[in-house]
């Protein structure tokens, strides 16, 4: 789960980090009011769950009421990588002397909690890592103790300043605490700035959290912005399904995440375009199948559906019964190809005989058949 910059900064502030004064605004009037309070120099920043806001024109420095209004008109309602900007954060300008990059995250390669720090702040860190890897400082910890010595060494290098180092180390220490206490997967400050007055300030803030830890993070869950989430994906989660909407027209319902990806890949391989990722899990519960169908068909683009089930512990005849019950409960006028394999596949196939469902034996046959039928059907 992701949160907005203004929310991350709220957390930073609670933990004692220095952030610029700011106001959240959803209308040009609110932006102007915030500017009048925070000016004469302020930044108007789009609040969306995606990177590259600056490049897309979603961040503007304003120096007058007129400019504030102009920025608000331009940014509110803007589309950034498919995200509509509904909120902006208006922030008092900072006197930037130097910019640096700092983050703490789960390092999948080292299997630890890792820091990435760089004197090259305010830029795309992936690009810095690619082009000037010597500008990247990395260190980490294999347990939950703050890596004090490495942090102190890195703190000096960030701004090349002994004077600022204790404050930088304190930021590192604080984001470690935030990371652990909030079950974050990423806490990123880009840029972390050194002001003309020698103060270390978090000018930006980005945080993402482990969905698996949300059960113990009420305050984080409360920050979820439903406008930024896909309604269908949230609904799917609530119903025990794992669903992701894609752009194609071949719906698919599969048990198991890996197999679901394999099925999507094969649809692509044979010239089709998957409409979704859907892991229905191991259950043969007809209600789950009905819910899955509703999600698949919701986009209105789907022309044919492929059900690919590998019966392991779940028996294929149980799954077949679930599918048949689902079909009794809802009207489905699309071609639906069913491929059952594994435990009790034959019994399952026998149950589907005489129904409108189209059987297939192998996965490749099923995929080809679904694509073919999709071409003849209308959405």
């Amino acid at each position, binding site marked *: 789960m992701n949160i907005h910059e203004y929310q991350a900064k709220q957390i930073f502030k609670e933990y004692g980090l220095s952030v610029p004064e700011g106001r959240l605004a959803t209308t040009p009037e609110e932006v102007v009011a915030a500017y009048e309070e925070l000016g004469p120099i302020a930044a108007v920043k789009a609040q969306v769950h995606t990177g590259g806001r600056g490049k897309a024109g979603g961040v503007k420095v304003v120096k007058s009421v007129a400019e504030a209004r102009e920025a608000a008109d331009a940014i509110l309602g803007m589309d950034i990588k498919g995200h509509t900007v509904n909120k902006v954060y208006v922030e008092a300008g900072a006197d930037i002397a130097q910019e640096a990059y700092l983050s703490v995250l*789960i390092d*999948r*390669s080292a*299997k*630890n*909690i890792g820091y990435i720090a760089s004197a090259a702040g305010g830029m795309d860190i*992936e690009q810095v890592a690619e082009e000037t890897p010597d500008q990247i400082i990395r260190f980490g910890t*294999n*347990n*939950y103790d703050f890596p004090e010595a490495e942090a102190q060494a890195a703190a000096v290098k960030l701004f090349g300043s002994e004077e600022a180092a204790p404050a930088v180390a304190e930021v590192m220490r604080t984001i470690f605490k935030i*990371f*652990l206490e909030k*079950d974050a*997967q990423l806490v990123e400050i880009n840029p972390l700035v050194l002001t003309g007055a020698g103060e270390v300030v978090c000018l930006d803030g980005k945080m993402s959290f*482990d*969905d*698996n*830890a949300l*059960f*113990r993070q009420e305050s984080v869950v409360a920050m979820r912005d439903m406008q930024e989430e896909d309604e269908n994906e949230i609904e799917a989660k609530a119903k025990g399904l*794992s669903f*992701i909407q*894609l752009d194609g027209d071949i719906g698919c319902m*599969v*048990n*198991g*995440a*890996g*197999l*679901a*990806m*394999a099925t*999507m*890949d*094969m*649809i*692509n*391989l044979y010239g089709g375009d*998957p409409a979704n*990722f859907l*892991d229905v899990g191991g259950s043969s519960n007809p209600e789950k199948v009905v819910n899955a169908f509703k999600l698949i068909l919701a986009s209105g683009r789907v022309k044919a559906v492929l059900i690919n089930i*590998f*019966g*392991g*512990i779940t028996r294929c005849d149980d799954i077949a019964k679930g599918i048949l019950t689902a079909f009794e409960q809802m009207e489905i006028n699309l071609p639906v190809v069913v491929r059952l*394999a*594994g*435990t009790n596949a034959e019994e399952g196939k026998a149950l589907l005989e005489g129904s409108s469902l189209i059987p297939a034996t*192998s*996965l*490749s046959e099923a995929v080809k058949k679904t694509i073919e039928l999709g071409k003849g059907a209308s959405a």
Partner: protein
Amino acid sequence: MSILVDENTKLLVQGITGRDGSFHAGQMIEYGTKVVAGCTPGKGGQDVHGVPVFDTVQEAVNVTGANATVIYVPAKFAPGAMKEAVDADIPLIICITEGVCVNDMVDIYHEVKAKGLTLIGPNCPGVISPDKAKIGIMPGPIHKPGKVGVISRSGTLTYEIVYALTEMGIGQSTCVGIGGDPIVGSNPRDILPLFESDPDTEAVVLVGEIGGDEEERTAEWMKSNFTKPAFAYIVGASAPEGKRMGHAGAIVSGNAGTAESKINAYNSVGVPVAKTIDEVAEMVKAHFG
């Protein structure tokens, strides 16, 4: 022969009194796995399928001599269950549980390594050496004893591949489901050396998916450390960037973790990568002639 589990494995089932633990304990016993003990705090003294239940892992180990454990407890209790197994120095710990918080895995991962134990999972189907022992949730009957080792990050996808192999008459020495989470106890580089030194494993199938850089690192490692024929299959080429595809670990960020990068990595060290499930089995079949 086989790796990790066989007829000498004496298994403890943590969470044996729960719905999943009890069901799968029964399935494992039916398959022939030697299940010697169960553990559920507060339920010591009971028995499930005739298996004695203990309050603590240490007690279960002391009384029964269990040398492996499988964990079926709910996600929020799984880190505690793993730690208890680590503290009891059980050489092989297999955690089936899905949905474990990644941050909780950091110290467990490193403690397991420091103690020289083996952790498989979390979020995995388990390990099976066909006709010897099955530890986990995979369907026993689709497997067949033989000479191909399988390492996979996915559950049902592994079953598909094993099923395709078995259908073609190709048996397996051991199938290891390492799990789909961002931090799992064992990676392919931990399992491959075991297959390398297992005289009865003559080829290996590696099933990977998008996310992380483990496949790339595996390929690099194989170049100078693995001599047996290997075949790979990678899923997720069609996944959109930034979305988590069911498995917590299956997410593509930028260019890192893409299917293309992983396929190239394997190809560059002479490991052919199949495009479909059937093709994996066909490649192995063609190799053995």
